[in-house]
């Protein structure tokens, strides 16, 4: 099962490190990363594999949001199907 992680907020050091550590601690493997800075704003989209993660996705999603709050960023982890169904015929 795959999920999409989106991270946005003011750019500063250590964002990718914090997010990667969070994922790694939960056995979530990063498959693809796209990251950019637009006018000082950090924006990152990751595709991740949550198949090996022992926790239910709903719990990890809630933890990701909390982690985002701790580092002052908006962090969302969502099942990839939402994006697939909305944007493909």
């Amino acid at each position, binding site marked *: 099962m795959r999920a*999409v992680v*989106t991270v946005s907020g003011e750019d500063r050091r250590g964002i990718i490190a914090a997010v990667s550590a969070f994922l790694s601690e939960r056995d979530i493997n990063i498959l*693809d990363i*796209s990251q950019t800075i637009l006018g000082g704003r950090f*924006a990152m*989209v990751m*595709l991740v594999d949550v198949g090996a993660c022992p926790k*239910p*996705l*709903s*719990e990890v*999603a*809630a933890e990701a949001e909390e982690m985002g709050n701790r580092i002052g960023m908006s962090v*969302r*982890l*969502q*099942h990839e*199907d*939402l*994006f697939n*169904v*909305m*944007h493909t*015929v």
Partner: protein
Amino acid sequence: MNQANIIETIDMIEKEHLDIRTVTMGISLLSCIRGTADETARAVYDRVLTKAENLVGCVHALSREYGIPIVNKRISVTPVSFLTAAFPEESGKIALALDRAAGELGVDFLGGYSALVHKGTAEFEEKFLSTIPETLSSTERLCASVNVGSSRSGINMNAVRRVGELVKETAALTADRDGIGCAKFVAFCNAVEDNPFMAGAFHGTGEADTVVNVGVSGPGVIRHALSFAPEADLTSAAEIIKKTAFKITRAGELIAREAAKRLGVSFGIVDLSLAPTPSRGDSVAQILEELGLETVGTHGTTACLAMLNDAVKKGGVMASSRVGGLSGAFIPVSEDVGMIEAAEKGAITVDKLEAMTCVCSVGLDMIAVPGDTSAATVSAMIADEVAIGMINNKTTAVRVIPVPGKRAGDEVNFGGLLGRAPVMPLHTGSAEKLIRRGGLIPAPIHSFKN
């Protein structure tokens, strides 16, 4: 991984109020009929608790996993009048059992305190109808509806007369809360059996045992999409609405499929309605204004709404093979900030709203009217609206609140999703004699299709 698509979806949720408006579990209660009201009430309570045991938890988990808000968890049941035909005076016992079950499960509303009397009212149904005002005033979450007409059968004007009286009685019994009981009561023409929206949801007898129906929403998303094409002609605008409705409906279908699978019940339908809330940016009226009206209610409103409603259906039908319910644009006055503002400045009238219901998905909805409005006038409003539904082969409905002690121009605040509204003036000419006549308005000629 298409980054633009991902960001578009996240913006829809975070900035444009995209949400799943309701996950509604439809439960057949026909197997709960027993010899007495007490036994039936117990069976109903047990069955609802068992069937919907995991509904709220499942919906919370889905909302988290997919990162999309799901606003309401609801239940619809078999019209209660069918369950209590042998003891209709005691229908209130079933109502209390249902309300208690809904409270324990933590669902927002439970619909189905209903009767289908579109061609005639049986004696047990007369007695059932009489229990509605007391039921609505003594329960929290229960919603009632009565189908008084259909394109196939005509309009049961005796029932229309009775429903006008029931609306007034309900307002009087909930006078201390501005007649809010009437917000949980709707009169229908061509009521649908799989509607997930309240107050009119019930689980039709043609439905499977237990189903999940999902209502999607997202007027803000449509308005936002249109704002990028301010000079587009209306063909292009319709195309934008269609594509956006497609995306919204897909999200709804995903949730419906997944909820049905996890709850072990049938996937019913996706209702692709645009349902506004009182939040700014979550308004159907503001879509119409985005299309070029200075204010909703002015000339051109009906044309805009017709296009919107049709384009929403086309996009939704492409997105899901199981579209049903009401599906279209809702125009409740008190629940839509654009409608509220138009009503406050007198830009929209009840007459214009009635015209709009010819082309929108339902009818006169959440309209506060003066407290001294007579039962016959309420009945006449219902008759007009039901006539529109009957002739146009569509669902129409009336949910009006004659607010005790209030006059035209006063304001009433129902709170939460029910919103606030100015009390709208009505015509003062009497329809008393018409309503007194009773009888059946015969089915229209185009009903004979066999």
